[in-house]
């Protein structure tokens, strides 16, 4: 099952807490450019898996290898560089800085990566349809618009992988559809890898593949033959 050339390789990943197991030996591979959705009931370990892949959390045992890099073997400095260069995050809560404008929030991500570039940040926001909202603060924008800033922010440094944890969890159907359509169209152009966590079956209409998790195990893995898009 494990292929040496796979972009993301997870092998026998275990995450143990004092009271419980979050992951009980998860193995999977994701090819470069693939969009994979991880589904499963609450508490099944989806976020834990995503966070370990993104280097935000450590496993108890097992390996995570991304683009030939053993993520868990990296020291703090190299892990920070790895995250900066390779990973974009989107969460259910937008985590935008409330007193910065949309474009400044994106520029902040540029700044931590290398240096701020307002023009480029503005272009990125235009791409997610917020060209008219560059200088609005998050509180002046709708939840869907805020999440679009997050997409622009997560992708501004051209990461190889976009990790999304319930990105539409706070949105209604219409906005969910807008966000996922947007992600889909950007993904078609830029071919980064997406690992998206959701418990909403509606969301898994987008993407190439669905993984089912239950109680720290992977219990299902199915490829979506035909992509539903704009149909």
């Amino acid at each position, binding site marked *: 099952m494990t292929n040496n050339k796979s972009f993301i390789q997870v092998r026998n990943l275990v995450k143990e807490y004092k009271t419980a197991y979050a992951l009980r030996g998860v193995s999977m591979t994701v090819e470069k450019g693939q969009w994979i959705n991880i589904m499963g009931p609450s508490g099944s370990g989806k976020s834990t898996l995503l966070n370990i892949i993104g280097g935000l959390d450590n496993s108890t045992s097992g390996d995570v290898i991304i683009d030939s890099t053993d993520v868990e073997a990296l020291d703090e400095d190299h892990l920070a560089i790895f995250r900066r260069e390779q990973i974009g995050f989107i969460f259910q809560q937008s985590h935008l800085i409330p007193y910065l404008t949309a474009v400044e929030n994106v520029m902040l991500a*540029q700044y931590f*990566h*290398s*240096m701020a*570039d307002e023009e*480029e940040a503005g272009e990125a926001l235009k791409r997610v349809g917020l060209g008219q909202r560059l200088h609005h603060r998050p509180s002046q924008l709708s939840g869907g618009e805020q999440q679009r800033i997050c997409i622009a922010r997560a992708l501004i*440094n*051209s990461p190889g992988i976009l990790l999304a944890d319930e990105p539409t969890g706070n949105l209604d159907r219409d906005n969910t559809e807008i966000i996922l359509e947007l992600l889909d169209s950007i993904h078609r152009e830029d071919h980064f890898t997406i690992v998206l966590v959701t418990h909403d079956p509606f969301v898994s209409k987008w993407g190439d593949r669905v993984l089912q998790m239950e109680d720290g195990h992977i219990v299902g893995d199915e490829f979506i033959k035909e992509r539903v898009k704009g149909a």
Partner: protein
Amino acid sequence: MINSIIYEAQLIGFKEGIKAGLVWLVFYSYLLSNDRKSLAKSFYTGISLSLLLGLSFLLFPESPVSGDFIGNIISMSFALFLIFSGAALYHASGVDLFVFRDGMRSEFVIRTLVFSLTVIFFLPDFTGSAVYLNELAELKENTFMTAVSAAAGIMIAAVIIFSFVRLYKPFWLGSFFAFPQLLLFLAMVKLFGSGIKGISELSLIPSVQRGFIKFIHDLVHQTFVMLMVPDHPLLKKTTWDFIGTFFGPGFASIASLFILLALPALFINHTLFRPLPEPPARTNIARRKTRALMLSDRRKKAVPVIFFMVFIISAWFSYGGEKVLQVYDPEPRPVVADNGVIVIPLKDPVTDVMDGRLHKFSFVHEGEEVRVMVIKKADNSLSVCLDACEICPPSGYGQRDDHVVCLYCSTPIPVNTLGRAGGCNPVPLAADIGDGFIRIELKEIIKKWGFVNSGR
């Protein structure tokens, strides 16, 4: 006795050791960050040669070079590094200076450059310290202890530098230095650590000022000489006062500060505030990263330059600023001729003419005041002159550091050149100095005073 030798000699050894260690550390880091580790060999050769040559001066009980001479060489090498780094900074800010053309960057040229810069840097300092140690050994009559203490000082410095490097591995320092910054750093070390007699001799700022004063004066004076016009009788006192402000110490100290700061400031302006060039990159990210690298490199490389400016400004304020301003103009003490000879005691209860300050004596001849001045030179000989020159009206001279200054036209004359005749120099007098007195023939004084411009 022994204690004071140990302390002084150790301090000198320690200072030289720390200095060499610091320069090595910065230079080696610079080489590492430029992938040119192999050049360290030329540095080691240069420093070893300097050390050997410098130490060889310890072998001469009568040292063939004087501390003054070495002091001048040190000032010159400071100026050299400064000028060179100024040129290099200018080059780094985008101007092509022929010395740095690519064609000249052959391996041999670079090795020779590193070697000779090392020697130019270390040889005067090592020699100066050796000569000073020599004097110390002679003074305390204990050559062995002096040598051992100095060696101990060097060892202590070596241990400190070595442990520091082992502990902190501060080779990241290299990313702050390009070639010009390196030279500037060397100039700074020269400025602050090259005094021959320990660390107290931060005297290079006033010497830059004096050099400047002299330069402006000579410029004005030589122009007149070239025009074959005698300048001093032609220009009235008010005119000289005006010109004098341009080679007076106030202006000179501002100007020397300006000279020291102009090039670094220009460099900062050129590099730090110039818009970044557009890097040839395919993607936004690559472009942004390259620009970020350029920006941070540029900022890092500005750090030593800014350091230099801060150091210079603070040194200028704490040392150069007011010190040179004072002109000491003592009241002449009356003397009388005895049997046609003026006799001045070298030492009496009130004064000691050997104290290094300017001393004036006066008497009245045919209703006119005639003044003689006496001052000790660095070589401990006495200079006896009229308090007047052949050109200016006899306003006399005042003393400023190791210069006397014409009170009429502000010309500075180094004390050590007193005794030369002609021009702006005080008119030298033949005097008999011995058994506690200076004796000058009255005839001699009167004759020479006759050459002096009457001012009318």
